């Protein structure tokens, strides 16, 4: 049966072996052979050959059905996601990470810092955006703000006059509730014999709790502030005054007349993310005099809030309010400035009312308070966080790609052993995700360590517990995995695309493009770094500039003793007693202390000859010692003096005021209308002197007009000292203060400190920038260090050859550093105009500012180059010092 003749035709057989799918070739070949013999035995060679051919054709494509390789295969490949494979990935990842300790730690540290920054800034931004949202009706509450432009200066603000709320409620049915609050500042509040200085005392209407959501612990929110002279305390304040006693019904007293207030409720402490804060909330009713004056401009201290229906477009109401405001405010302008609203507008000024959503108040109000947020800083910080993360990712990509040489053999061998591209990609992606997760853990640790410092910097009370929120935590992990995938994607696709043949011949990564992706990434990193350096230097210069500016008076060694009005009649006695001390040069009693917002009195003064022309002027009430104590300079005329009894109706103007009034020539002796009394009689003041301009606000504002009047306006004693034994001096002051037994404790501040406090927000920005730019520099350097390591390693042989041929160490170092320097220069060229533009935007906020000098850019560039050189030099010098025999022997 088995004769050699009985073989099928060769060419037909060849056809079968070449065209039949190889998975089933063996069995089909065998079957057809058997059948051939069967046919041969039954019908002879020709028949058998014919049928064989026919049957071969029937098993060739397209007729043949292919056996699906996945269904049943003899050499089954393991699924990429098989647990064993994943264990294998992890194992290899772990080994690789362990073997390349330097690049692993660079990666982990870089990513961890990036993530930590991201988390911190996320916490910060989240907090900034959460302001006032604790109110259940947050999206329906709006604040009616004053729009007022006087003499070209924006003097509008968050408040309106006393009657605005009442009118809004009466006139517009869509105003469901209208409520007012008024800040009272500090007060001395006594309970029985004890008394405290109570900050954050707010006065409010009884409808306050209908609008805002502050949960009550005790008392009834509906009736809490309904009766006059009642007060609601926060938990903390209640404990301060009453300990564990029940505060309800107890009576506190405060105010000039020591009026009694009955406690009607205790509420939770006001959340920190609230644009107003109070420790004590007293009734407005009964506290302010009822004025039957229709206008909204009188006594503009009332922050007015309205509650609107759901889904109501507040712009609609705003338009209606504007019409009413025109009437109410117009009449006042008519009365005070003797101008019709039309004339007022023709002068280039404007007035009106606009509504501001509650949730915008924190970030979009332009207020002087350092508490208030700024949407710009939110954007800037978010951008910085994104950049830091990006740079950390870039480092990762750079380093992983750079270390590809070391891994390339592995890739080659694995490919030869049958790994498919997908498997290798998964391997690399899992490695980078693993790394990212480790970095996340380290980053969380860093956040924990940095949070107290960061809180101090930003003045917030952020807590780690915010991260335990399940959705935040999930987002964090998902984000980290995403960062890992992103960071790993480039190396994964790059490494896995190696051709095994080339790799194993050692030629895979030899390509060195003139400007490849990696160079682009280095440029990007240094672009961010240099921009941040420029920003930091500029912010720092601006801050120093503001602090070193001649403010026009002597603020050194000036002590401010607060609350001296509590001494009542003894205020002057106390002052006279302390200036006896040899350590005191001079002392002055005044309510107004320059710098900071102690007094917001802005009133219009008019010249007697031209009463239509009003000038918005700040009023200071001083005594004759004020100007010498603060070392201010008289430009013309003289200071107030006790020997001139007529000085009671005298006024001292600053230079700006003189100019604004148009009195450049001979201002002395001229007369102005200070104010109009209740009977409509103009009170006239005569100019006795001109004081040189001094900054009474921060340097953000231009110096405005200022008028000083002689007056008993007590509150503070300013003491010019000349002592180097401050603690003893202060102790003796305190003793003397206590000998008068005032109700208030002795408290003081230094004018210098107050001065510094004005710049708190600039200082914060400068500190935040310094922190972030140093972190960015650090991360960028980590990346550069890694790259330098890689370059040096890759060019070992080249360096060896050069050294054999006589190159010096210096020339080798130069060779290795040159490439990086080029990239940094490119980064500098890109960063300079962008940083210049950005910082100019920021500087626009200041009336007095530094210029962006060319040397800042040069400095930033030099700094970046210097740091980069330092980073690179270690590796370069190491490479240059290696004995060439060693590096060349290996082949």
């Amino acid at each position, binding site marked *: 049966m*088995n004769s050699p003749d009985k073989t099928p035709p060769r060419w037909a057989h060849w056809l079968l072996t070449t065209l039949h799918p190889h998975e089933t070739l*063996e*069995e089909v070949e*065998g*079957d057809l*052979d*058997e059948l051939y013999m*069967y046919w041969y035995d039954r019908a002879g060679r020709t028949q058998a050959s014919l049928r064989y051919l026919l049957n071969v054709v029937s098993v060739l494509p397209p007729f043949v*059905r292919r056996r699906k390789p996945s*269904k049943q295969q003899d050499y089954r490949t393991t699924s990429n996601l098989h647990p064993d494979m994943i264990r294998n990935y992890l194992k290899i990842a772990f080994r690789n990470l362990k073997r390349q300790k330097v690049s692993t730690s660079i990666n982990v540290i870089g990513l961890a810092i990036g993530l930590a920054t991201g988390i911190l800034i996320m916490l910060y931004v989240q907090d900034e955006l959460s302001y006032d949202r604790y109110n259940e009706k947050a999206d329906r509450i709006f604040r009616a703000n004053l729009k007022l432009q006087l003499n070209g200066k924006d003097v509008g603000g968050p408040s309106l006059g006393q009657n605005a709320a009442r009118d809004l409620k009466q006139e517009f049915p869509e105003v469901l509730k209208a409520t007012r609050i008024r800040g009272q500042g500090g007060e001395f509040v006594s309970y029985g014999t004890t008394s405290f200085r109570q900050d954050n005392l707010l006065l409010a209407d009884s409808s306050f709790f209908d609008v805002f959501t502050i949960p009550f612990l005790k008392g009834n929110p509906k009736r809490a502030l309904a009766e006059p002279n009642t007060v609601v305390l926060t938990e903390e304040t209640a404990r301060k005054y009453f300990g564990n006693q029940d505060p309800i019904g107890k009576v506190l007293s405060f105010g000039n007349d020591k009026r009694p207030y009955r406690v009607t409720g205790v509420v939770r402490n006001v959340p920190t993310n609230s644009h107003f804060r109070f420790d004590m909330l007293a009734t407005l009713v009964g506290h302010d005099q009822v004025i039957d004056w229709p206008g909204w401009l009188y006594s503009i201290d009332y922050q007015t809030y309205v509650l609107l229906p759901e889904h109501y477009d507040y712009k609609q109401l705003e338009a209606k309010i504007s019409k009413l405001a025109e009437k109410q405010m117009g009449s006042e302008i008519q009365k005070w400035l003797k101008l019709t609203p039309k004339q007022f507008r023709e002068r280039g000024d404007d007035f009106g009312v606009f509504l501001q959503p509650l949730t915008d108040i924190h970030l979009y109000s332009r207020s002087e308070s350092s508490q208030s947020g700024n949407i710009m800083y939110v954007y800037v910080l978010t951008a910085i966080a994104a950049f830091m993360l990006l740079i950390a990712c870039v480092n990762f990509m750079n380093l992983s790609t750079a270390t590809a040489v070391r891994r390339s053999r592995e890739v080659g061998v694995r490919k030869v052993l049958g790994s498919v591209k997908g498997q290798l990609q998964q391997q690399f992606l899992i490695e980078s995700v693993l790394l990212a997760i480790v970095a996340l853990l380290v980053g969380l640790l860093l956040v924990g360590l940095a949070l107290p410092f960061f809180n101090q910097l930003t003045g917030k009370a952020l807590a780690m517990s915010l991260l335990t929120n399940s959705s935040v935590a999930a987002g964090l992990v998902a984000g980290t995995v995403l960062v890992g995938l992103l960071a790993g994607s480039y190396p994964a696709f790059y490494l896995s695309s190696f051709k095994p043949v080339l790799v194993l011949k050692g030629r895979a990564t030899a390509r060195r493009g003139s400007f490849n992706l990696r160079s682009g990434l280095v440029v990007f990193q240094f672009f961010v770094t240099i921009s941040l350096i420029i920003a930091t230097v500029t912010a720092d210069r601006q801050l120093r500039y503001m602090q070193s500016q001649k403010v026009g008076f002597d603020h050194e060694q000036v002590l401010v003793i607060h609350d001296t009005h509590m001494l009542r009649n003894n205020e002057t006695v106390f002052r006279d007693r302390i200036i006896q001390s040899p350590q005191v040069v001079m002392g002055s009693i005044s309510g107004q202390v320059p710098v900071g917002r102690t007094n917001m009195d802005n009133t219009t003064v008019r010249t007697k000859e031209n009463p239509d022309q009003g000038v918005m002027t700040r009023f200071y009430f001083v005594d004759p010692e004020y100007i010498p104590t603060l070392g201010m300079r008289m430009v013309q005329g003289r200071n107030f003096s006790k020997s001139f009894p007529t000085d009671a109706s005298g006024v001292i103007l600053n230079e700006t005021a003189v100019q604004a009034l148009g009195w450049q020539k001979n201002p002395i002796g001229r007369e102005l209308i200070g104010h109009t009394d209740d009977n409509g009689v103009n009170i006239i003041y005569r100019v006795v002197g001109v004081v040189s301009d001094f900054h009474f606000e921060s340097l953000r504002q231009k110096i405005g007009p200022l008028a000083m009047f002689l007056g008993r306006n007590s509150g503070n004693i300013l003491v010019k000292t000349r002592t180097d034994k401050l603690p003893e001096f202060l102790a003796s002051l305190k003793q003397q203060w206590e000998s008068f037994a005032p109700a208030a404790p002795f408290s003081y501040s230094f004018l210098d400190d107050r001065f510094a406090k004005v710049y708190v927000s600039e200082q914060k920005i400068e500190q935040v920038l310094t922190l972030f730019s140093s972190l960015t520099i650090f991360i960028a350097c980590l990346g550069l260090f890694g790259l330098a390591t890689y370059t040096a390693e890759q060019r070992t042989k080249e360096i060896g050859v050069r050294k054999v041929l006589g190159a010096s160490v210096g020339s080798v170092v130069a060779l290795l550093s040159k490439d990086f320097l080029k990239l940094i220069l490119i980064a500098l060229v890109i960063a300079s105009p962008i940083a210049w533009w950005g910082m100019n935007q920021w500087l626009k906020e200041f009336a007095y500012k530094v210029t962006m000098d060319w040397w800042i850019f040069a400095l930033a560039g030099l700094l970046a180059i210097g740091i980069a050189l330092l980073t690179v030099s270690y590796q370069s010098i190491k490479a240059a010092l290696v004995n060439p025999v060693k590096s060349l022997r290996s082949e």
Partner: protein
Amino acid sequence: MRRTYLGEFEEVVLLMVAILDGEGYGVTVSQALEEHTGRIVTFGTVHNTLIRLEEKGFVTSELGGGTTERGGRRKRLFRVTALGSKALQEIQQLRQELWGMIPPKIVQLSGQ
């Protein structure tokens, strides 16, 4: 119950695999087909049908040992799965039921 789709030729091949009881592979199935039904089909048809039956889960296969008459090449032996035999039984049962529903006259007619 999920209907099992089984073509007529598939059914016959499946029956052959069942009849051959473990000895069924390309050659024997083709020969049995020829012998019992008189149908001569190309080998490709048989081969494709076996693969399709396997994809449907009616048969399993494994490569058996090679024999000299095949030049040492292994043969793929097929065996009916539980699902396959269940499908055959269902078909059989269905046919019987349907037969039972034919009026007697027609049966006689068609029987003759």
